[in-house]
Protein backbone atom coordinates (compact mmCIF):
# COMPACT_ATOMS: atom_id res chain seq x y z
CA UNK A 1 0.00 0.00 0.00
CA UNK A 2 1.33 3.42 -0.91
CA UNK A 3 1.73 6.01 1.79
CA UNK A 4 -0.93 8.40 0.50
CA UNK A 5 -3.56 5.69 0.56
CA UNK A 6 -2.52 4.63 4.07
CA UNK A 7 -2.94 8.19 5.32
CA UNK A 8 -6.27 8.56 3.52
CA UNK A 9 -7.54 5.37 5.15
CA UNK A 10 -6.52 6.07 8.74
CA UNK A 11 -5.89 9.82 8.89
CA UNK A 12 -9.29 10.67 10.34
CA UNK A 13 -8.79 8.06 13.08
CA UNK A 14 -5.51 9.69 14.07
CA UNK A 15 -7.06 13.14 14.04
CA UNK A 16 -9.86 12.12 16.35
CA UNK A 17 -7.45 10.39 18.74
CA UNK A 18 -5.20 13.45 18.75
CA UNK A 19 -8.18 15.67 19.47
CA UNK A 20 -9.27 13.48 22.38
CA UNK A 21 -5.76 13.33 23.87
CA UNK A 22 -5.40 17.11 23.67
CA UNK A 23 -8.76 17.55 25.36
CA UNK A 24 -7.64 15.12 28.06
CA UNK A 25 -4.67 17.30 28.92
CA UNK A 26 -6.92 20.33 29.37
CA UNK A 27 -9.91 18.75 31.15
CA UNK A 28 -8.98 15.29 32.44
CA UNK A 29 -12.14 14.49 34.40
CA UNK A 30 -14.69 15.50 31.78
CA UNK A 31 -12.81 13.89 28.93
CA UNK A 32 -12.44 10.57 30.74
CA UNK A 33 -16.23 10.38 31.08
CA UNK A 34 -16.70 10.58 27.31
CA UNK A 35 -17.56 7.41 25.45
CA UNK A 36 -14.30 7.58 23.52
CA UNK A 37 -12.44 6.86 26.76
CA UNK A 38 -13.81 3.31 26.69
CA UNK A 39 -12.36 2.75 23.23
CA UNK A 40 -9.04 4.35 24.03
CA UNK A 41 -7.00 1.21 24.86
CA UNK A 42 -8.23 -0.43 21.68
CA UNK A 43 -7.59 2.56 19.46
CA UNK A 44 -4.17 3.02 21.08
CA UNK A 45 -3.19 -0.54 20.20
CA UNK A 46 -4.48 -0.06 16.64
CA UNK A 47 -2.30 3.03 16.46
CA UNK A 48 0.73 1.04 17.61
CA UNK A 49 0.01 -1.53 14.94
CA UNK A 50 -0.23 1.21 12.33
CA UNK A 51 3.07 2.70 13.48
CA UNK A 52 4.75 -0.69 13.21
CA UNK A 53 3.27 -1.10 9.70
CA UNK A 54 4.41 2.38 8.69
CA UNK A 55 7.95 1.67 9.89
CA UNK A 56 8.01 -1.77 8.30
CA UNK A 57 6.86 -0.43 4.94
CA UNK A 58 9.37 2.40 5.08
CA UNK A 59 6.87 5.25 5.00
CA UNK A 60 8.33 8.71 5.23
CA UNK A 61 8.89 10.66 8.42
CA UNK A 62 5.82 12.75 7.79
CA UNK A 63 3.76 9.70 8.77
CA UNK A 64 6.08 7.87 11.17
CA UNK A 65 6.92 10.99 13.20
CA UNK A 66 3.29 11.92 13.46
CA UNK A 67 2.35 8.42 14.65
CA UNK A 68 5.31 8.30 17.01
CA UNK A 69 4.22 11.52 18.71
CA UNK A 70 0.69 10.27 19.03
CA UNK A 71 1.89 6.96 20.47
CA UNK A 72 4.13 8.67 23.05
CA UNK A 73 1.23 10.84 24.15
CA UNK A 74 -1.08 7.82 24.33
CA UNK A 75 1.46 5.72 26.23
CA UNK A 76 1.56 8.29 29.00
CA UNK A 77 -2.23 8.16 29.31
CA UNK A 78 -2.66 4.38 29.12
CA UNK A 79 0.14 3.64 31.59
CA UNK A 80 -0.42 6.55 33.94
CA UNK A 81 0.07 5.79 37.66
CA UNK A 82 -3.03 4.57 39.49
CA UNK A 83 -4.74 6.93 41.91
CA UNK A 84 -3.39 6.53 45.48
CA UNK A 85 -5.57 4.55 47.86
CA UNK A 86 -5.57 5.42 51.56
CA UNK A 87 -6.34 1.83 52.43
CA UNK A 88 -2.89 0.85 51.20
CA UNK A 89 -1.24 3.38 53.50
CA UNK A 90 -2.94 1.75 56.50
CA UNK A 91 -2.00 -1.74 55.34
CA UNK A 92 1.57 -0.65 54.81
CA UNK A 93 1.87 0.86 58.28
CA UNK A 94 0.22 -2.06 60.05
CA UNK A 95 1.66 -4.98 58.13
CA UNK A 96 4.00 -4.12 55.28
CA UNK A 97 6.39 -1.92 57.21
CA UNK A 98 7.05 -4.28 60.16
CA UNK A 99 7.53 -7.10 57.67
CA UNK A 100 10.02 -5.03 55.71
CA UNK A 101 11.91 -4.17 58.90
CA UNK A 102 12.11 -7.86 59.84
CA UNK A 103 13.22 -8.83 56.34
CA UNK A 104 16.19 -6.46 56.77
CA UNK A 105 16.89 -7.61 60.32
CA UNK A 106 20.66 -7.93 59.83
CA UNK A 107 21.01 -4.28 58.84
CA UNK A 108 18.60 -3.25 61.57
CA UNK A 109 20.58 -5.16 64.20
CA UNK A 110 23.82 -3.60 62.96
CA UNK A 111 22.24 -0.14 63.04
CA UNK A 112 20.91 -0.73 66.55
CA UNK A 113 24.37 -1.82 67.69
CA UNK A 114 26.00 1.18 66.03
CA UNK A 115 23.61 3.49 67.82
CA UNK A 116 23.04 1.92 71.25
CA UNK A 117 26.61 0.79 71.97
CA UNK A 118 28.19 4.26 71.73
CA UNK A 119 25.21 5.68 73.63
CA UNK A 120 25.56 3.20 76.50
CA UNK A 121 29.34 3.50 76.62
CA UNK A 122 29.14 7.30 76.74
CA UNK A 123 26.41 7.19 79.36
CA UNK A 124 28.42 4.87 81.62
CA UNK A 125 31.72 6.69 81.05
CA UNK A 126 30.14 9.97 82.10
CA UNK A 127 29.00 8.39 85.37
CA UNK A 128 32.58 7.36 86.14
CA UNK A 129 34.29 10.48 84.75
CA UNK A 130 31.77 13.36 84.69
CA UNK A 131 34.42 15.81 83.47
CA UNK A 132 34.49 14.00 80.09
CA UNK A 133 31.22 15.80 79.27
CA UNK A 134 33.34 18.83 78.39
CA UNK A 135 35.10 16.93 75.61
CA UNK A 136 31.78 16.02 73.94
CA UNK A 137 29.94 19.31 74.40
CA UNK A 138 30.93 22.96 74.69
CA UNK A 139 30.17 24.73 77.96
CA UNK A 140 27.42 26.73 76.24
CA UNK A 141 25.66 23.56 75.12
CA UNK A 142 25.99 22.07 78.59
CA UNK A 143 24.49 25.21 80.13
CA UNK A 144 21.57 24.98 77.71
CA UNK A 145 20.89 21.33 78.53
CA UNK A 146 20.99 22.13 82.22
CA UNK A 147 18.51 24.97 81.69
CA UNK A 148 16.17 22.72 79.63
CA UNK A 149 16.05 19.99 82.27
CA UNK A 150 16.20 22.11 85.40
CA UNK A 151 13.91 20.35 87.91
CA UNK A 152 12.29 23.70 88.78
CA UNK A 153 10.92 24.15 85.21
CA UNK A 154 7.17 23.90 84.60
CA UNK A 155 7.77 22.65 81.04
CA UNK A 156 10.62 20.20 80.82
CA UNK A 157 12.76 19.55 77.78
CA UNK A 158 12.70 23.08 76.41
CA UNK A 159 13.78 26.51 77.47
CA UNK A 160 10.89 28.37 75.77
CA UNK A 161 8.19 28.00 73.15
CA UNK A 162 4.70 26.54 72.85
CA UNK A 163 3.66 22.98 72.11
CA UNK A 164 2.83 23.74 68.46
CA UNK A 165 6.13 25.49 67.88
CA UNK A 166 8.04 22.56 69.32
CA UNK A 167 5.98 20.08 67.27
CA UNK A 168 6.98 21.88 64.08
CA UNK A 169 10.59 22.01 65.20
CA UNK A 170 10.73 18.31 66.10
CA UNK A 171 9.19 17.26 62.77
CA UNK A 172 11.52 19.45 60.75
CA UNK A 173 14.62 18.52 62.71
CA UNK A 174 14.16 14.82 63.44
CA UNK A 175 12.67 13.78 60.11
CA UNK A 176 15.36 15.66 58.22
CA UNK A 177 18.00 13.82 60.25
CA UNK A 178 16.33 10.47 59.53
CA UNK A 179 16.05 11.16 55.79
CA UNK A 180 19.67 12.33 55.62
CA UNK A 181 20.79 9.23 57.52
CA UNK A 182 19.07 7.04 54.95
CA UNK A 183 20.36 8.97 51.93
CA UNK A 184 23.94 9.24 53.16
CA UNK A 185 24.00 5.44 53.41
CA UNK A 186 24.53 5.48 49.65
CA UNK A 187 28.19 6.37 50.30
CA UNK A 188 28.94 2.68 50.94
CA UNK A 189 27.08 2.95 54.25
CA UNK A 190 29.69 5.31 55.71
CA UNK A 191 27.26 8.20 56.11
CA UNK A 192 24.71 6.08 57.95
CA UNK A 193 27.39 4.60 60.24
CA UNK A 194 28.65 8.07 61.07
CA UNK A 195 25.23 9.58 61.77
CA UNK A 196 24.17 6.62 63.92
CA UNK A 197 27.34 6.56 66.01
CA UNK A 198 27.49 10.35 66.34
CA UNK A 199 23.87 10.52 67.47
CA UNK A 200 24.53 7.67 69.88
CA UNK A 201 27.40 9.58 71.47
CA UNK A 202 25.38 12.81 71.61
CA UNK A 203 22.26 11.28 73.12
CA UNK A 204 24.27 9.11 75.50
CA UNK A 205 26.31 12.18 76.40
CA UNK A 206 23.28 14.32 77.26
CA UNK A 207 21.72 11.49 79.26
CA UNK A 208 24.97 10.73 81.05
CA UNK A 209 25.76 14.33 81.89
CA UNK A 210 22.30 15.17 83.21
CA UNK A 211 22.18 11.98 85.25
CA UNK A 212 25.63 12.66 86.66
CA UNK A 213 24.75 16.18 87.83
CA UNK A 214 21.49 15.02 89.40
CA UNK A 215 19.06 16.34 86.75
CA UNK A 216 18.31 12.77 85.68
CA UNK A 217 14.77 12.84 87.04
CA UNK A 218 13.28 15.45 84.68
CA UNK A 219 15.39 14.16 81.79
CA UNK A 220 14.26 10.54 81.94
CA UNK A 221 10.69 11.62 82.65
CA UNK A 222 10.85 13.76 79.51
CA UNK A 223 12.38 11.30 77.07
CA UNK A 224 10.73 8.05 78.16
CA UNK A 225 7.46 8.82 76.37
CA UNK A 226 8.70 9.54 72.87
CA UNK A 227 11.94 7.56 72.98
CA UNK A 228 10.26 4.37 71.74
CA UNK A 229 9.16 5.88 68.45
CA UNK A 230 12.05 8.29 68.02
CA UNK A 231 15.01 6.00 68.69
CA UNK A 232 13.46 3.07 66.80
CA UNK A 233 12.79 5.33 63.82
CA UNK A 234 16.38 6.60 63.83
CA UNK A 235 17.70 3.03 63.95
CA UNK A 236 15.38 1.98 61.11
CA UNK A 237 16.40 4.94 58.95
CA UNK A 238 20.05 4.09 59.67
CA UNK A 239 19.44 0.44 58.85
CA UNK A 240 17.80 1.47 55.58
CA UNK A 241 20.90 3.51 54.75
CA UNK A 242 23.22 0.63 55.67
CA UNK A 243 21.18 -1.69 53.49
CA UNK A 244 21.58 0.69 50.54
CA UNK A 245 25.32 1.06 51.06
CA UNK A 246 25.87 -2.67 51.49
CA UNK A 247 23.96 -3.35 48.28
CA UNK A 248 26.36 -1.04 46.49
CA UNK A 249 29.30 -2.94 48.00
CA UNK A 250 27.87 -6.46 47.68
CA UNK A 251 25.06 -6.60 45.13
CA UNK A 252 24.85 -10.39 45.44
CA UNK A 253 23.84 -12.39 42.39
CA UNK A 254 22.65 -9.36 40.49
CA UNK A 255 24.18 -6.55 38.53
CA UNK A 256 24.71 -3.40 40.60
CA UNK A 257 22.12 -1.35 38.71
CA UNK A 258 19.06 -3.58 39.28
CA UNK A 259 20.27 -4.47 42.80
CA UNK A 260 20.45 -0.76 43.69
CA UNK A 261 17.00 -0.09 42.27
CA UNK A 262 15.55 -2.89 44.43
CA UNK A 263 17.46 -1.65 47.50
CA UNK A 264 16.31 1.92 46.86
CA UNK A 265 12.71 0.74 46.73
CA UNK A 266 13.07 -1.06 50.07
CA UNK A 267 14.99 1.84 51.61
CA UNK A 268 12.44 4.45 50.57
CA UNK A 269 9.64 2.42 52.12
CA UNK A 270 11.62 2.10 55.34
CA UNK A 271 12.32 5.84 55.30
CA UNK A 272 8.61 6.56 54.84
CA UNK A 273 7.77 4.27 57.75
CA UNK A 274 10.39 6.01 59.87
CA UNK A 275 8.79 9.30 58.86
CA UNK A 276 5.41 8.12 60.18
CA UNK A 277 7.06 6.98 63.43
CA UNK A 278 8.82 10.32 63.85
CA UNK A 279 5.56 12.21 63.32
CA UNK A 280 4.12 10.15 66.16
CA UNK A 281 7.24 10.78 68.27
CA UNK A 282 7.11 14.53 67.63
CA UNK A 283 3.46 14.61 68.62
CA UNK A 284 4.17 12.78 71.90
CA UNK A 285 7.27 14.86 72.55
CA UNK A 286 5.50 18.17 72.07
CA UNK A 287 2.17 17.47 73.75
CA UNK A 288 2.82 14.74 76.33
CA UNK A 289 6.46 14.53 77.29
CA UNK A 290 6.68 18.21 78.16
CA UNK A 291 4.01 18.07 80.89
CA UNK A 292 5.98 18.18 84.13
CA UNK A 293 3.10 17.81 86.57
CA UNK A 294 2.38 14.11 86.08
CA UNK A 295 3.27 11.39 88.58
CA UNK A 296 6.26 9.23 87.80
CA UNK A 297 4.13 6.10 87.57
CA UNK A 298 2.12 7.56 84.72
CA UNK A 299 5.18 8.86 82.86
CA UNK A 300 7.29 5.73 83.11
CA UNK A 301 4.29 3.42 82.82
CA UNK A 302 3.16 5.00 79.55
CA UNK A 303 6.74 5.02 78.31
CA UNK A 304 7.14 1.31 78.98
CA UNK A 305 3.78 0.65 77.33
CA UNK A 306 4.86 2.56 74.22
CA UNK A 307 8.14 0.63 74.05
CA UNK A 308 6.21 -2.65 74.29
CA UNK A 309 3.79 -1.41 71.63
CA UNK A 310 6.55 -0.40 69.19
CA UNK A 311 8.62 -3.55 69.67
CA UNK A 312 5.53 -5.75 69.53
CA UNK A 313 4.35 -3.99 66.37
CA UNK A 314 7.73 -4.44 64.68
CA UNK A 315 8.01 -8.03 65.85
CA UNK A 316 4.50 -9.34 65.19
CA UNK A 317 2.97 -6.84 62.72
CA UNK A 318 1.91 -8.40 59.42
CA UNK A 319 2.46 -11.97 60.57
CA UNK A 320 -0.21 -14.58 60.05
CA UNK A 321 -2.05 -13.23 57.02
CA UNK A 322 -0.40 -14.15 53.76
CA UNK A 323 -1.33 -11.15 51.63
CA UNK A 324 -1.64 -8.47 54.26
CA UNK A 325 -4.48 -6.81 52.36
Amino acid at each position, binding site marked *: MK*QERFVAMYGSEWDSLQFWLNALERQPKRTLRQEQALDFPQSYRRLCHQL*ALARGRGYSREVT*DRLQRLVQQGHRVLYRPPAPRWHRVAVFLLAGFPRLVRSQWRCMAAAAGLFYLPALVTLLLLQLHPELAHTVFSSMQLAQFEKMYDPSNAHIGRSSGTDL*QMFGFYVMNNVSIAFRTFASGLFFGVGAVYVLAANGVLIGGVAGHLTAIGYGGPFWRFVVGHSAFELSALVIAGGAGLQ*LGLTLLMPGRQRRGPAL*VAAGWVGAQLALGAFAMLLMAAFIEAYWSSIAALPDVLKFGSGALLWLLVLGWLWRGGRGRGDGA
Partner: protein
Amino acid sequence: MLDTVREIETPEGISLRLRAAGAVPRAQAWMLDLLVRLGVFVLAMIPFSLLGVGGNGLAMLLLFALMWAYSVVCEVWLGGQTLGKRALGLRVVNADGTPVTWMPSVVRNLLRVVDALPGVYGVGLACTLIDPHARRLGDIVAGTMVVHAAELPAGTQVPKVAAIAPPVVLAADEQAALVEFAERSGQLTLQRQEELANLLMPLTGRRDSGAVAQLIAHANWLLGRA
Protein backbone atom coordinates in the same frame (compact mmCIF):
# COMPACT_ATOMS: atom_id res chain seq x y z
CA MET B 1 22.69 7.85 16.34
CA LEU B 2 25.10 9.94 18.33
CA ASP B 3 22.69 11.58 20.72
CA THR B 4 20.91 11.15 24.01
CA VAL B 5 17.81 9.37 22.72
CA ARG B 6 16.91 6.26 24.66
CA GLU B 7 14.63 3.77 22.96
CA ILE B 8 12.30 1.76 25.15
CA GLU B 9 10.22 -1.08 23.83
CA THR B 10 6.62 -1.03 24.98
CA PRO B 11 4.32 -4.03 25.51
CA GLU B 12 2.80 -3.22 22.12
CA GLY B 13 6.11 -4.02 20.44
CA ILE B 14 7.03 -0.54 19.31
CA SER B 15 9.71 1.70 20.74
CA LEU B 16 9.30 4.97 22.59
CA ARG B 17 11.97 7.60 22.12
CA LEU B 18 12.99 9.46 25.26
CA ARG B 19 15.31 12.41 24.89
CA ALA B 20 17.40 12.71 28.06
CA ALA B 21 17.65 16.19 29.56
CA GLY B 22 21.12 17.40 30.56
CA ALA B 23 22.34 19.26 33.59
CA VAL B 24 21.71 22.82 32.41
CA PRO B 25 17.92 22.79 31.87
CA ARG B 26 17.56 20.73 35.03
CA ALA B 27 19.56 23.23 37.06
CA GLN B 28 17.36 26.00 35.67
CA ALA B 29 14.24 24.08 36.62
CA TRP B 30 15.66 23.56 40.11
CA MET B 31 16.34 27.29 40.45
CA LEU B 32 12.77 28.07 39.41
CA ASP B 33 11.44 25.55 41.93
CA LEU B 34 13.61 27.15 44.60
CA LEU B 35 12.17 30.56 43.79
CA VAL B 36 8.62 29.23 43.85
CA ARG B 37 9.21 27.60 47.24
CA LEU B 38 10.83 30.72 48.64
CA GLY B 39 7.88 32.76 47.41
CA VAL B 40 5.35 30.41 49.00
CA PHE B 41 7.27 30.46 52.27
CA VAL B 42 7.54 34.23 52.41
CA LEU B 43 3.85 34.66 51.59
CA ALA B 44 2.83 32.09 54.20
CA MET B 45 4.95 33.80 56.84
CA ILE B 46 2.61 36.82 56.76
CA PRO B 47 -0.42 35.05 58.30
CA PHE B 48 1.86 32.85 60.45
CA SER B 49 3.53 35.86 62.02
CA LEU B 50 0.11 37.02 63.23
CA LEU B 51 -0.27 33.77 65.18
CA GLY B 52 2.62 34.55 67.48
CA VAL B 53 5.01 31.84 68.68
CA GLY B 54 2.74 28.99 67.54
CA GLY B 55 3.10 30.36 64.02
CA ASN B 56 6.76 29.40 64.17
CA GLY B 57 5.71 25.78 64.50
CA LEU B 58 3.47 26.05 61.45
CA ALA B 59 6.29 27.75 59.57
CA MET B 60 8.60 24.84 60.42
CA LEU B 61 6.00 22.36 59.21
CA LEU B 62 5.64 24.32 55.97
CA LEU B 63 9.40 24.47 55.56
CA PHE B 64 9.53 20.72 56.05
CA ALA B 65 6.83 20.17 53.43
CA LEU B 66 8.57 22.47 50.94
CA MET B 67 11.94 20.81 51.52
CA TRP B 68 10.93 17.17 51.36
CA ALA B 69 7.40 16.77 50.02
CA TYR B 70 7.09 19.48 47.35
CA SER B 71 9.01 17.65 44.63
CA VAL B 72 7.40 14.26 45.26
CA VAL B 73 3.84 15.59 45.36
CA CYS B 74 4.35 17.76 42.28
CA GLU B 75 6.02 15.00 40.30
CA VAL B 76 3.33 12.44 41.02
CA TRP B 77 0.30 14.71 40.67
CA LEU B 78 1.45 16.80 37.72
CA GLY B 79 2.55 13.92 35.50
CA GLY B 80 6.24 13.95 36.38
CA GLN B 81 6.67 17.72 36.34
CA THR B 82 7.37 20.08 39.20
CA LEU B 83 6.47 23.68 38.39
CA GLY B 84 10.06 24.42 37.40
CA LYS B 85 10.27 21.33 35.20
CA ARG B 86 6.97 22.26 33.57
CA ALA B 87 8.29 25.71 32.76
CA LEU B 88 11.46 24.22 31.24
CA GLY B 89 9.56 21.46 29.40
CA LEU B 90 11.10 18.58 31.38
CA ARG B 91 9.43 15.46 32.71
CA VAL B 92 10.47 12.68 35.09
CA VAL B 93 9.64 9.22 33.76
CA ASN B 94 10.04 5.69 35.10
CA ALA B 95 12.42 3.28 33.44
CA ASP B 96 9.61 2.08 31.14
CA GLY B 97 8.76 5.59 29.95
CA THR B 98 5.58 5.97 32.00
CA PRO B 99 5.05 9.04 34.22
CA VAL B 100 6.90 8.68 37.52
CA THR B 101 5.04 6.90 40.36
CA TRP B 102 5.18 7.36 44.15
CA MET B 103 8.04 5.13 45.22
CA PRO B 104 10.56 6.04 42.50
CA SER B 105 9.77 9.70 43.08
CA VAL B 106 10.35 9.31 46.84
CA VAL B 107 13.67 7.56 46.19
CA ARG B 108 15.00 10.12 43.74
CA ASN B 109 14.01 13.04 45.94
CA LEU B 110 15.38 11.56 49.18
CA LEU B 111 18.69 10.83 47.48
CA ARG B 112 18.83 14.46 46.35
CA VAL B 113 20.75 14.85 49.64
CA VAL B 114 23.62 12.80 48.21
CA ASP B 115 23.54 14.46 44.79
CA ALA B 116 23.52 17.91 46.35
CA LEU B 117 26.92 17.23 47.97
CA PRO B 118 29.51 18.75 47.93
CA GLY B 119 28.58 22.39 47.52
CA VAL B 120 25.71 22.75 45.06
CA TYR B 121 24.95 19.47 43.31
CA GLY B 122 28.59 18.47 42.77
CA VAL B 123 27.95 14.72 42.79
CA GLY B 124 24.81 15.16 40.73
CA LEU B 125 26.60 17.21 38.09
CA ALA B 126 29.48 14.74 37.79
CA CYS B 127 27.01 11.88 37.58
CA THR B 128 24.88 13.48 34.86
CA LEU B 129 28.01 14.12 32.82
CA ILE B 130 29.18 10.49 33.10
CA ASP B 131 25.87 8.69 32.70
CA PRO B 132 24.77 8.13 29.08
CA HIS B 133 21.22 9.12 29.97
CA ALA B 134 22.27 12.09 32.13
CA ARG B 135 20.88 10.57 35.31
CA ARG B 136 22.04 11.68 38.73
CA LEU B 137 22.62 9.13 41.50
CA GLY B 138 19.06 9.47 42.76
CA ASP B 139 17.73 8.74 39.28
CA ILE B 140 19.93 5.67 38.92
CA VAL B 141 18.77 4.19 42.22
CA ALA B 142 15.14 5.13 41.57
CA GLY B 143 15.29 3.82 38.01
CA THR B 144 13.97 7.10 36.64
CA MET B 145 15.22 9.61 34.12
CA VAL B 146 14.47 13.23 33.25
CA VAL B 147 13.44 13.76 29.63
CA HIS B 148 12.43 16.63 27.41
CA ALA B 149 8.65 16.62 27.40
CA ALA B 150 8.09 18.53 24.17
CA GLU B 151 8.12 16.31 21.08
CA LEU B 152 10.15 17.29 18.06
CA PRO B 153 8.08 18.66 15.18
CA ALA B 154 7.00 16.00 12.69
CA GLY B 155 8.53 15.88 9.20
CA THR B 156 7.20 18.34 6.64
CA GLN B 157 5.13 17.39 3.65
CA VAL B 158 6.64 16.64 0.29
CA PRO B 159 5.73 19.48 -2.15
CA LYS B 160 2.89 18.35 -4.40
CA VAL B 161 3.79 18.10 -8.11
CA ALA B 162 2.73 15.77 -10.89
CA ALA B 163 4.12 12.31 -10.17
CA ILE B 164 6.69 10.67 -12.47
CA ALA B 165 7.62 6.99 -12.10
CA PRO B 166 11.35 6.37 -11.61
CA PRO B 167 12.96 4.77 -14.71
CA VAL B 168 14.32 1.81 -12.67
CA VAL B 169 12.95 -0.14 -9.70
CA LEU B 170 14.43 1.31 -6.50
CA ALA B 171 15.30 -0.66 -3.37
CA ALA B 172 13.49 0.21 -0.13
CA ASP B 173 16.34 2.25 1.36
CA GLU B 174 16.83 4.09 -1.92
CA GLN B 175 13.15 4.97 -1.94
CA ALA B 176 13.39 6.15 1.67
CA ALA B 177 16.41 8.33 0.85
CA LEU B 178 14.60 9.88 -2.11
CA VAL B 179 11.45 10.66 -0.12
CA GLU B 180 13.46 12.04 2.75
CA PHE B 181 15.33 14.33 0.38
CA ALA B 182 12.02 15.59 -0.97
CA GLU B 183 10.64 16.14 2.55
CA ARG B 184 13.67 18.10 3.64
CA SER B 185 14.11 20.09 0.45
CA GLY B 186 12.19 22.99 1.99
CA GLN B 187 14.82 23.30 4.73
CA LEU B 188 17.83 23.26 2.37
CA THR B 189 19.21 26.12 0.30
CA LEU B 190 18.66 25.92 -3.44
CA GLN B 191 22.39 25.37 -4.03
CA ARG B 192 22.54 22.48 -1.58
CA GLN B 193 19.43 20.89 -3.11
CA GLU B 194 21.04 21.05 -6.54
CA GLU B 195 24.34 19.74 -5.25
CA LEU B 196 22.60 16.72 -3.76
CA ALA B 197 20.37 16.18 -6.78
CA ASN B 198 23.38 16.26 -9.12
CA LEU B 199 24.69 13.13 -7.41
CA LEU B 200 21.76 11.29 -8.98
CA MET B 201 22.62 12.28 -12.55
CA PRO B 202 22.50 8.62 -13.70
CA LEU B 203 18.89 8.35 -12.46
CA THR B 204 17.46 11.67 -13.58
CA GLY B 205 19.67 12.40 -16.56
CA ARG B 206 19.37 16.11 -15.75
CA ARG B 207 21.30 18.65 -13.74
CA ASP B 208 20.60 21.42 -11.24
CA SER B 209 17.03 22.69 -10.86
CA GLY B 210 15.76 20.21 -13.40
CA ALA B 211 17.21 17.33 -11.37
CA VAL B 212 15.64 18.64 -8.15
CA ALA B 213 12.21 18.92 -9.78
CA GLN B 214 12.57 15.43 -11.23
CA LEU B 215 13.50 13.91 -7.85
CA ILE B 216 10.53 15.57 -6.15
CA ALA B 217 8.27 14.22 -8.88
CA HIS B 218 9.70 10.73 -8.29
CA ALA B 219 9.10 11.14 -4.56
CA ASN B 220 5.47 12.04 -5.28
CA TRP B 221 5.13 8.86 -7.28
CA LEU B 222 6.70 6.79 -4.50
CA LEU B 223 4.22 8.25 -2.00
CA GLY B 224 1.40 7.10 -4.25
CA ARG B 225 0.17 10.48 -5.44
CA ALA B 226 -1.55 10.62 -8.83
